[in-house]
């Protein structure tokens, strides 16, 4: 019997709470309050913050493990936790030499704050993270910012939002910064509901965000660097980890179904058995590519040039596309195995929620957009032909 890591042990309660409320969260399209509180009670919000600032210096691998575990129980909880940790990783990676962000990290750890994100924008920007219309307007020691944010996940539940915007009103769309605005420093005027197929508990509604905050809260590094060095990689790795959790749970349901069927009919191999074998094969591919992706990121972190390289960007893009495709295929296979029992809601073999949650994976930063970016890079980048890399 393999033992869980100490962090996973601490997440056992939160996972149980997530499993208990997942159907209600999904049905009502509501924030997973209970499981997020359980994660705070287990002091798991600030674990990636350095020890000297009150955190536990947990690695991204530790966080990915937690996301995978949560994903097996409630994909919405896992996604909220992953999105929070993606923001934390940016603050940890790029705020270490910056007084305001150091103090902010200490607050995240001591008060178990939940961080939200506002990158998506209206006016034709959509999910094109590398472009903004809205701009930071400096006014003495403070700045103002007004953003037509077509999506901000759990905006009304979080304690701070990390917003992208142009550096100044006269800066081009790609010259962006990331600013942290704390609850009380912004107002939100709701512009769009969140009534979706899946990931319903993330409450990713649309808002007009109006903020005023000290200029100290703008990250010193350009957003393009933040995206390349921490955000895109951690997003793809943590999303992939929670998607793995959804897939693993779907396969375990399919396997349980086949086992029950086999027990009833001794001497016969149940019809769907071969599909379980196929699903387990895809699950292994998913797991291997996530572990390899994590290794790739750890290696790249040792050298900034590598983090900014095309080869790293392409590896991370391919990881996202690969894991999201495997997820939908795995859930499909599992549904075929469980048949009507997978199709029906509420039973032990039910897979409707898994399938609806999984459908978000190829669309969150649309795979076609990512393919567009990688195909552009492949005009100049030559792929590594070696096996060992």
């Amino acid at each position: 019997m393999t033992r869980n890591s100490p962090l996973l042990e601490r997440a056992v309660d939160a996972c149980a709470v997530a499993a208990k409320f997942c159907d209600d969260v999904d049905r009502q399209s509501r924030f997973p309050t209970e499981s997020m509180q359980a994660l705070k009670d287990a002091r798991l919000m600030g674990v990636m913050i350095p020890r000297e600032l009150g955190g536990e210096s947990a690695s991204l691998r530790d966080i990915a493990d937690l996301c995978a575990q949560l994903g097996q129980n409630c994909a919405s909880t896992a996604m909220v936790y992953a999105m929070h940790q993606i923001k934390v990783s940016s603050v940890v990676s790029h705020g270490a030499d910056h007084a305001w962000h150091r103090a902010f990290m200490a607050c995240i750890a001591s008060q178990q704050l939940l961080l939200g994100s506002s990158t998506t924008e209206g006016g034709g920007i959509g999910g094109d993270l590398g472009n903004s219309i809205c701009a930071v307007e400096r006014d003495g020691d403070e700045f103002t910012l007004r953003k037509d944010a077509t999506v901000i996940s759990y905006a009304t539940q979080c304690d701070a939002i990390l917003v992208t915007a142009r550096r100044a009103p006269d800066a081009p769309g790609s010259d962006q910064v990331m600013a942290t605005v704390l609850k009380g420093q912004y107002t939100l005027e709701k512009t769009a509901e969140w009534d979706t197929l899946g990931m319903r508990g993330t409450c990713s509604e649309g808002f007009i965000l109006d903020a005023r905050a000290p200029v100290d809260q703008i990250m010193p590094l350009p957003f393009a660097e933040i995206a390349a060095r921490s955000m895109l990689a951690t997003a793809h790795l943590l999303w992939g980890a929670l998607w793995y959790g959804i897939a693993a749970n779907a396969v375990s349901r399919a396997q349980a179904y086949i086992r029950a069927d086999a027990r009833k009919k001794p001497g016969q191999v149940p019809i769907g058995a071969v599909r379980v074998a196929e699903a387990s094969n895809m699950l292994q591919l998913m797991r291997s590519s996530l572990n390899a992706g994590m290794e790739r990121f750890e290696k790249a972190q040792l050298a900034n040039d590598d983090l900014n390289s095309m080869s790293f960007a392409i590896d991370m893009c391919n990881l996202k596309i690969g894991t999201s495709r495997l997820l939908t295929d795995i859930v499909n296979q599992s549904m075929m195995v469980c048949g009507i029992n997978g199709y029906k809601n509420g039973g032990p073999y039910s897979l409707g929620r898994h399938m609806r949650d999984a459908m978000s994976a190829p669309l969150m930063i649309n795979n076609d957009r990512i393919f567009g970016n990688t195909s552009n890079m492949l005009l100049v980048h030559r792929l590594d032909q070696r096996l060992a890399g």
Partner: protein
Amino acid sequence: MKVIIRKLIEQHGRLPVAIATLSDDQDLYATGLTSFAAVQLMLGLEEAFDVEFPERMLNRKSFASIDAIASCIAEIAPQKAVA
């Protein structure tokens, strides 16, 4: 060489400002160079100088300014750098 680089940036860079207003050390990304346009620029440079950028140069830093581009070209094709 920088004259050619400037001409290529003008052709492929899709910058919102006139190329003449840029200094050699100015950050092209801050000026509005997108990652898509950066690749188009790389292709234009490879064609114009008859070079292939090695893998280690395919990162943001190598194309961050006219100076940075010039030093990349000078490194891989020293004979063309004087052109």
